[in-house]
């Protein structure tokens, strides 16, 4: 099996600009050189087969250079979100027990060097840490401890999301499952080598990362934001002449709201907008007056399955599966769940065989958790979610994880977290808590902020005497209704 970068590079596009950040452009050749510099630093002959390498790197070029080098040496890559804080980061590191960590030393308001050293001291796992500041001169430190076992994995990736009980869920994707993205991604997004795509999804998720791989392969330009600064994003789109955007609906709306008067031309240049990560309601796209001429296409993609299907958001909301995707429907308890088989299907959840068995049937169909029904001409109508998941600004918030953090507070005995529609976030996180002694609201927010990523912190916390129950479980429908009936000015 060729290493990942060798499999992606297309000699025809070697000198084409395939990645643009706010201040730099990179060709495919630059990635080969970046990878070689990391290989040189790792030293000759280092074999990383079965060894887990965690990445916390904000700069896309250096992030990808480390990935390509580690992959060439056989390592298992574990890219992590830079939004993690002490609680969720150490939960993931406990689950991974990495052999190596490549990390930025610090970002504003958070020292990853300190968080990782704290974790290493507490866990006692033997680990090599490479740290860098913004100049990306990697400094190596070896920490002694108990050696972690190696996996029977070679050149695989583990992409992390939160599990329902607060246990992190690592989606294992083999390199052989990434390669088909090189065809599926450009097909679903209708990409030609002349296109310039502004990409919002983070590259720590499989879909974001495969966008970059597809650009290297197909020769289109993949444009990414540096930090999340909306006026800077508009300027980057202007500088690079983007004609397409892939975004969550909430971020496109925020970008449009904040910058349409600053850079109207940026929106007039867009001829295709791809929306991913949140449900879109019919007619929602009509509010973008400057984008009247543009096509709006919804994309349904899952870490476990890759890109599944698309829908014309200007028409009736019906979804058309990609030609590489097989679909069927599982009827249970009067509900019809969408099942898919794709060439980009994941292998399993890392060290969670029970979770994997619940998600994938014995004959290899993934249960998507989306309730759906077949429509005419092989199209599909999505009805709702079976799983209890909040989609806030395109990021997934698992209620169970937030509930656990809330009940870890000494005054809180029970907690229930629900998603409620919100004009900017798409959905916001609302928590209902039962307390056995008085507490300060502000203090409970701080308790959450130091333990989990900011987007998971409840936007509202309501005190309730007891949680409503239905068939022995918390009645979240009643809680959503209760919230809607209150006046929240």
């Amino acid at each position, binding site marked *: 099996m060729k290493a990942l970068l060798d499999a992606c590079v297309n000699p025809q596009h070697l000198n084409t600009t395939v990645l643009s950040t706010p201040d730099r452009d990179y060709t495919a050749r630059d990635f080969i050189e970046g990878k070689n510099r990391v290989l040189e630093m790792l030293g000759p002959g280092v074999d990383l087969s079965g060894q887990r390498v965690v990445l916390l790197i904000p700069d896309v070029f250096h992030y990808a250079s480390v990935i390509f080098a580690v992959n060439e040496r056989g390592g298992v890559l574990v890219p992590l979100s830079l*939004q993690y804080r002490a609680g969720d980061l150490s939960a993931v590191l406990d689950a991974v027990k990495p052999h190596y960590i490549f990390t930025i030393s610090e970002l*504003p*308001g958070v020292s990853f060097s300190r968080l990782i050293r704290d974790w290493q001291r507490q866990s006692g796992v033997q680990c090599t840490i490479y740290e860098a500041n913004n100049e990306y001169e990697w400094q190596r430190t070896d920490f002694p401890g108990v050696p972690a076992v190696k996996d029977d994995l070679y050149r695989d990736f583990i992409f992390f999301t939160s599990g329902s009980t607060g246990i992190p869920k690592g989606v294992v994707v083999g390199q052989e499952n990434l390669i088909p993205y090189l065809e599926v991604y450009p097909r679903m997004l209708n990409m030609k080598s002349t296109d310039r795509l502004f990409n919002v999804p983070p590259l720590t998720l499989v879909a974001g990362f495969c966008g970059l791989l597809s650009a290297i392969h197909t020769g289109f330009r993949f444009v990414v934001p540096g*930090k*999340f*600064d*909306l*006026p*800077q994003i508009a300027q980057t789109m202007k500088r690079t002449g983007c004609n397409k955007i892939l975004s969550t609906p*909430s*971020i496109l709306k*925020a970008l449009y*709201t*904040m910058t*349409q*008067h*600053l850079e109207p031309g940026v929106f007039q240049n867009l001829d295709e907008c791809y929306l991913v990560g949140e449900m879109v309601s019919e007619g929602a796209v009509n509010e973008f007056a400057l984008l009247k001429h543009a096509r709006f296409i919804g994309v349904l993609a899952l870490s476990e399955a890759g890109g599944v299907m698309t829908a014309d958001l200007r028409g009736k909301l019906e979804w058309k599966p990609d030609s590489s995707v097989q679909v069927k429907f599982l009827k249970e308890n009067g509900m019809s769940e969408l099942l898919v088989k794709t060439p980009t299907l994941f292998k399993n959840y890392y060290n969670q065989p029970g979770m994997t068995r619940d998600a994938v049937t014995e004959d290899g169909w993934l249960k998507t958790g989306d309730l759906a029904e077949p429509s005419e001409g092989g199209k599909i109508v999505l009805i709702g979610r079976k799983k209890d998941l909040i989609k806030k*600004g395109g990021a997934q918030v698992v209620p169970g994880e937030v509930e656990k953090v809330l009940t870890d507070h000494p005054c809180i005995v029970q907690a229930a977290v629900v998603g409620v529609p919100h*004009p*900017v*976030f798409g959905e916001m996180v609302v928590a209902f808590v039962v307390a056995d002694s008085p507490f300060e*609201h*502000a203090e409970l*927010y*701080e308790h959450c*902020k130091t333990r989990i990523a*900011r*987007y998971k*912190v409840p*936007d509202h916390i309501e005190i309730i005497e007891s949680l409503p129950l239905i068939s022995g479980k918390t009645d979240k429908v009643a809680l959503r209704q209760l919230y809607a009936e209150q006046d929240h000015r």
Partner: protein
Amino acid sequence: MTFEAFCRFISDYTHTPLQEIKENASFRDDLGIDSLQMVNLIVGLTQEMRLGMDVLAGSEDMATVGKLYQVLTRDEDK
């Protein structure tokens, strides 16, 4: 709107302790407010103050609490 009322609004809206909201505090680096929360805050503030988004000319206008206050209240006396 007074600066004190402005800070209280930000504190309530973003669940950030009032004592952290100082004139030179950076929204991103000191208050840990991410981009989407920032948009939400600005939508909330402009509604409260009955202003349009076009009062903001770029990232610098939203960098610190004091700068945002200055930009949003620029025309109050007129």
